[in-house]
C-alpha cells in the first residue's frame, strides 16, 4: 500500500521586492485575513511582487526522499516553509499526514547566556518534546554532540560548529518524524560529525517522507529518490531519476566566455568528438566513461617562431581540474607557427564526476612566455552519471578477492 504523507497541489506564493511595500501589503493581508477573506487575493500580482513559488505540485510517500534543487532564490526554502506551516500559500493546498520533524534552524531558541545543558531542554521544548522525554535521552544527546565537558559552559562561548552540533543532536536524538524537512543541515564542517549525521539521517529517512534542500549534489544523489529542479519559483523538472535532475540543475548555469591576453592569438572554435561522433549541441552531455576528442581551431599571429598551447578543464566553481599541455609526437610542447591551425586533441576516457565543466585554452609565446590568448568558459559540457560521487575524478577499480593471511602467523603469542 502506498502511504502518501505529503500532498502538494498547485501551491503558489508571492513575495514582494521592496521593504516598504512589503510591510504595507502585510498590513493589507492582515486586514483581509481578519475579515475572513482568502489569502493572496484573486491570484494577481500587486506592484513590485513576484512569484516566489509558482504552481508546485507533488506527492510523497513514506520511504521517499525528494530533493529540491535550484539556485539561490529559486523558491526551495519558501516551499519548505509552506510545507512546514510557517507561511500560508497564496494558492493551492498542502496536506501533511503524521508527525513533522524539521532539521532547519538548528539550535533555534538557544540562549547564549545559558549553558548547553539548559539549552537542550529549551530547544527540545521548542520542538514540542517534554522534559521527561529529554531526561531519558540527555546522556545520549550530550554524547552525540561530542560537546563533552563544555556542556555546562554558556553557549555563547561555543564555537559555531559546537552550537550547530548541539542543535543537531537535540533534534536528531529526539525526533521520530513521519515527515522530515531538511534544509542545508549538513554544512556542519567537521567530517567526523558529518559522517555521523549522514548515518543518522539514513535511519530517519528510511521511515519517513523527506523533503531535502541542498546545494550539494553529492547529498542529493545519495539520499534522494526523486529530484525537483526549481528556477524562479517554477518547477522545471520533477524526475524520479536524480541523475537527470542533477544534470538539469547543472544545465541552468550559464557559462560566460572571457578572453584575456595580448590578442595576438585567437581561438576560432572548439568541437567535441564523443566516442568518435561529433557532438554539435550547445552544451554536450557526456556519459561518464566516454572517450572524448577535442577539435581546436586557432589562429596565431606573426611574426614569431612558435606558440605553445594548453587545454584546461575547470569545474563550475572555476577550479582547474585537468591540465593538458599540447605535445608533439616527441612529448615536447607542440610548436604552433603563425597561421591558422586545427588541432585534434585526444583527451581519452572522461573520468570526471557528474557535474558541469568547461574548457579553458591558453596560448603563450614559446620564447617570451607572454600570454597571447587565454579563453575561459570556451565551451561547457556536462558529465552524466547515475551517481554523483565524492571526488572530482571517478575511477572505479576491479579488485581481486583474496584469502586473508593466516591468522596464526600474524598474531604473535
Amino acid at each position, binding site marked *: 500500500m502506498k502511504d502518501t504523507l505529503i500532498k502538494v497541489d498547485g501551491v503558489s506564493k508571492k513575495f514582494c521586492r521592496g521593504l516598504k511595500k512589503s*510591510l504595507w501589503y502585510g498590513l493589507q493581508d*492582515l486586514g483581509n485575513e481578519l475579515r*475572513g477573506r*482568502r489569502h493572496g487575493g484573486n491570484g494577481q500580482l500587486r506592484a513590485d511582487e513576484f512569484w516566489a513559488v509558482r504552481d508546485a505540485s507533488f506527492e510523497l510517500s513514506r520511504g521517499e526522499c525528494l530533493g529540491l534543487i535550484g539556485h539561490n532564490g529559486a523558491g526551495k526554502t519558501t516551499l519548505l516553509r509552506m510545507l512546514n506551516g510557517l507561511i*500560508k500559500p497564496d494558492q*493551492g493546498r498542502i496536506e501533511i499526514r503524521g508527525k513533522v520533524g524539521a532539521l532547519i*534552524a538548528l539550535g533555534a531558541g538557544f540562549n547564549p547566556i545559558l549553558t548547553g545543558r539548559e539549552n537542550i531542554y529549551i530547544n527540545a521544548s521548542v520542538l514540542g518534546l517534554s522534559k521527561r522525554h529529554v531526561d531519558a535521552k540527555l546522556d545520549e544527546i550530550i554524547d552525540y554532540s561530542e560537546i563533552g565537558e563544555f556542556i555546562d559552559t554558556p553557549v555563547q562561548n561555543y564555537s559555531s560548529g559546537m552550537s550547530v552540533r548541539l542543535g543537531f543532536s537535540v533534534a536528531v536524538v529526539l525526533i521520530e518524524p513521519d515527515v522530515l524537512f531538511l534544509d542545508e543541515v549538513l554544512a556542519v564542517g567537521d567530517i567526523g560529525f558529518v559522517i555521523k549525521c549522514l548515518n543518522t539521517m539514513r535511519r530517519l529517512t528510511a521511515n519517513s517522507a523527506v523533503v531535502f534542500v541542498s546545494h550539494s549534489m553529492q547529498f542529493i544523489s545519495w539520499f534522494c529518490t526523486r529530484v525537483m529542479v526549481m528556477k524562479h519559483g517554477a518547477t522545471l523538472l520533477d524526475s524520479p531519476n536524480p541523475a537527470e535532475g542533477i544534470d538539469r540543475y547543472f544545465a541552468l548555469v550559464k557559462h560566460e566566455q572571457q578572453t584575456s591576453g595580448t590578442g595576438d592569438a585567437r581561438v576560432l572554435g572548439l568541437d567535441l568528438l564523443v566516442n568518435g561522433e561529433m557532438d554539435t549541441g550547445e552544451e554536450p552531455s557526456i556519459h561518464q566513461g566516454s572517450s572524448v576528442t577535442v577539435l581546436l581551431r586557432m589562429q596565431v599571429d606573426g611574426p614569431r617562431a612558435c606558440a605553445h598551447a594548453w587545454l584546461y578543464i575547470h569545474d563550475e566553481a572555476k577550479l582547474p581540474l585537468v591540465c593538458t599541455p599540447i605535445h608533439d609526437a616527441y612529448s615536447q610542447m607542440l610548436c604552433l607557427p603563425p597561421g591558422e591551425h586545427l588541432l585534434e586533441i585526444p583527451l581519452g576516457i572522461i573520468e570526471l564526476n557528474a557535474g558541469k565543466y568547461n574548457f579553458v585554452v591558453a596560448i603563450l609565446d614559446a620564447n617570451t612566455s607572454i600570454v597571447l590568448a587565454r579563453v575561459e568558459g570556451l565551451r561547457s559540457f556536462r558529465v552524466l552519471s547515475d551517481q554523483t560521487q565524492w571526488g572530482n575524478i571517478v575511477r572505479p577499480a576491479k579488485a581481486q578477492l583474496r584469502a586473508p593471511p593466516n591468522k596464526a602467523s600474524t598474531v604473535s603469542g
Partner: protein
Amino acid sequence: MNEPAISVYTSDSSLSNPFKMVREMFRDLFASRELAWRLTVRDIRAQYRQAFLGILWAFILPLANTVTWIFLSRAGIVSVGETVLPYPIYVFTGTMLWAILMDAMTAPLQQTNAARGMLAKLNFPREALVVSGIYQTLFNAGIKIALLIGALILLGMNPGWNVLLFPLGILSLILVGTAIGLLITPVGMLYTDVGRALPLLMQFLMYLSPVVFPMPKEGWAATLFMINPLTPLILTARDWLTGFSPEFLGYFLLVNAAALALLLAVWVAYRLAMPILIERMSA
C-alpha cells in the same frame, strides 16, 4: 494506535471554519504549556544571570518614580490634591501597580519580537510566547508585591482581610495589559512605530489615571479620569491592598469582562496574523 494528525494548509482564512479554529486554539494553548514554562525559565535565568543588580531591576523603576513624586510634592513643585492615604503610600502603590500593567502590556510584542528567529523557522504553538510573557509578568509582579507589602507593614498599614482579594486586582491588571498588548502586536511586528509609541502613550495615560495624582473631584479632568478604563483597575487594586472597600467595583468588573472578550478576539487575530508576519520577516 491513534489516527495520524493531518495538517492542511491552504490560502483560506481560518475564520471560514470557526469551530475548527477555536478547537485548534485551545489545543495549541494546551500544547504550549511546557514550552511557555521553559521559555519563562530561560528568560528569567538569562536576565538575572547577566545582571549584577539581579531582581532589583523588577522594582527599581517604580521605586525611582515614587521617590521623584514624593520629592516633587514635598518640595511644592507640583501640588498634589489631598489623598486619604498618606501620599508616599499612595504614590508607591500607584507606581507599582502601573508598572505591573506596563509589564503585561509590553510583554506580547516584546516576546514575539524576541522570538523572530524561532518563528521564522520553526513551527511551534505561538501561544507559548504570550503565555510565557504572562508568566514573566507574574514573576516580576510577585517581587514587586512582596516589596510593596513589606513596605506597607513597615509603614504601619494594616490592610485587613481585603488583601486576600488583592491578587484578583493584579490578575485583572495583567488581563487588561495582555489584551491591549496582544492587540497591538500584529501591527507592531510589522511597524516598529507601534513599539516606540506605546511607552509615550502610556506615560500620558498614567497622568490620566489615579497613579500619582488622586482622583480629581470635579471638572473635565474628573470626567477624563472616569472615562479612562484603567482608573477602576488601579483604584480597586489599591483599595484592596490598603484596606478600603473599593468604590468602583461594578466598573471594575465591567472593564474585566470587556478585557476578557477583547483578549479572546485579539488571540484570534494574533493567530491569523502570524503566517503573514512571518512571511514579512527574513527567513
